[in-house]
């Protein structure tokens, strides 16, 4: 309960910070949206339609109130262009789904790959296999996503001509209907996020392999796979839950750059586009939404770890 309250408190504080940063500092959204050459009457009209003629506190209040009701408000740019459907919720519903597909596929591939490669590296610790897994994983983890992504494009599009350099998804269709557009974005996210998990599983396996009960099992004649699955992996698994959760949390940020590299029509591309257009209202609502997801995953991970590792449960109570 205390953690949930802390999460909500953080989110509230973040909403103040994000709102303050995007609203108080320079000029205002109407001016930023219309550009410097806007005529005063046009500016005034847009300000009124966006509610910018109210006081800052009033605007923050109505924004927050809207958020609590699930209303993300209107995009300043869409209102300025007299778009028929200016609401942010309408604009981001498809990108959110697309991003969820990308994140889900990445996670589904990430978990078995992490366990497999981590266990493999741990069993053969400090041997050739270990180095062949750990070193590239660490190198890719150190690089920015856009560098990895661009190098992948050079190899798979430039040299091999096998995969498209941009992940365009026709409006109204699901990215799943054209799976090849997902390959490179997923690969980039996997390369960027595998190392942390592999390292964790690897050291877990190394630790468990030195335990007495594993030695006893070995002396009792248990070998190979039975020993590995029954004794080693099961005990090395619990600490890995947190690292998987951290990786999913990483995806919330990582997806923004990766989607932009491939022009994948997800929430990241939408956000970067909004920043480019200085669409202040769209930026603040999208950022708060992503922050909420981020904090929620953190919370769920904490609860899941406590649930899976009985030792922690008794320590806490």
């Amino acid at each position: 309960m205390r953690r949930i309250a802390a999460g909500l408190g953080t989110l509230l504080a973040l909403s103040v910070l994000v709102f303050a940063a995007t609203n108080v500092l320079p000029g205002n959204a109407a001016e930023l949206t219309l550009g410097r050459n806007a005529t005063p009457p046009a500016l005034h009209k847009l300000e009124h339609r966006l509610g910018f003629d109210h006081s800052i506190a009033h605007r923050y209040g109505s924004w927050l109130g809207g958020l609590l009701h699930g209303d993300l408000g209107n995009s300043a740019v869409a209102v300025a262009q007299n778009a028929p459907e200016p609401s942010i919720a309408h604009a981001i519903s498809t990108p959110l789904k697309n991003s969820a597909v990308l994140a889900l596929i990445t996670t589904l591939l990430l978990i078995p790959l992490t366990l497999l490669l981590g266990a493999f590296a741990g069993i053969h610790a400090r041997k050739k296999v270990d180095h062949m897994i750990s070193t590239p994983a660490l190198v890719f983890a150190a690089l920015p996503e856009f560098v990895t992504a661009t190098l992948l494009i050079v190899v798979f599009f430039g040299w091999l001509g096998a995969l498209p350099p941009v992940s365009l998804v026709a409006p109204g269709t699901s990215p799943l209907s054209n799976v090849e557009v997902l390959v490179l974005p997923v690969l980039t996210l996997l390369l960027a996020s595998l190392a942390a998990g592999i390292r964790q599983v690897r050291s877990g396996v190394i630790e468990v392999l030195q335990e007495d009960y594993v030695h006893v099992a070995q002396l009792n004649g248990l070998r190979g796979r039975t020993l590995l699955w029954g004794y080693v992996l099961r005990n090395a698994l619990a600490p890995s839950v947190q690292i998987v959760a951290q990786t999913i949390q990483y995806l919330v940020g990582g997806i923004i750059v990766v989607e932009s590299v491939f022009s994948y029509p997800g929430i990241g591309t939408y956000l970067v586009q909004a920043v480019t257009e200085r669409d202040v209202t769209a930026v603040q609502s999208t950022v708060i939404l992503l922050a909420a997801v981020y904090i929620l995953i953190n919370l769920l991970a904490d609860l899941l770890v406590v649930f899976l590792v009985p030792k922690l449960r008794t320590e806490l109570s």
Partner: protein
Amino acid sequence: MSTAVATPSPPHSRRPRIPAFIAADRGGQVGLVFLVLIVFVALFGPFIAPHSPNVPIGIPGQGSIGGSPLGLDQLGRDVLSRALSGGRTALALGALATVATYLVGVMLGLLAGYARNTALDGITMRTVDIFISLPAILVMLVLVTALGGSSWVLVLGAAVVLFPGVTRIVRTAAAETATRGYVEAAVARGEKRGAILRREILPNIMAPIIADLGVRFSWSIILIASVNFLGLGLSPPASDWGLMISENRSVIPTNPWAVVAPALALVLLILGVNLLGDAYVRHLGRSSSR
């Protein structure tokens, strides 16, 4: 700093000595080579560049030709010359952001750690928690939206993202050190808080502070390069490695070097910084286990 003891260097040493933690560590050696190479390019690259980085000299996207081994970019400018002059922004902005990160982070951490378990400590650390609870790239994007994409905003953004980690580390170390006898002696002597923090505590917690300098430096480089890549930071025709990679994606089929060259430069820079940082951490581990 009265406690800082300068180690007297031998008067006749001809070449600068490489610190032990690099010389004795394979990763450290590789990292040093990478970093020296990149710093050399950043400092002297613009002088050895065969062409001007901003003047088109041929057909856009053309591959390797005479006088232009890495070919031309999407506007027909020499890729080698642009890559050679693209290092300054990455290094300088990254370094500035790191300095700002440590200035703010160390100061807040010292204050909070020394005032441990008081309201000042609590408020500082809760604020830090809030800053940590937003993904780094989102912080950068919010700041760019608010302030536009100038070099100063990039530096500020990276510092805002990175200072909480430093504050946490410094706070823990300072709170621990503040209970030591020599600090209590200084308090008893009636020394001012600033003097105690600077002279008694700071010199004794330098090791954990320096330990992840490499990580923070490489993170600021990555964050700034990423925002430049997204087209939200420095604006063309600046020759910045991050910006070059995004500009030249359209010419990948005809001249992949236009993106590979700046990408490899960033790879060497980031790996070099990380390898040196790791070598220092290993060195700390060895000397503390002795």
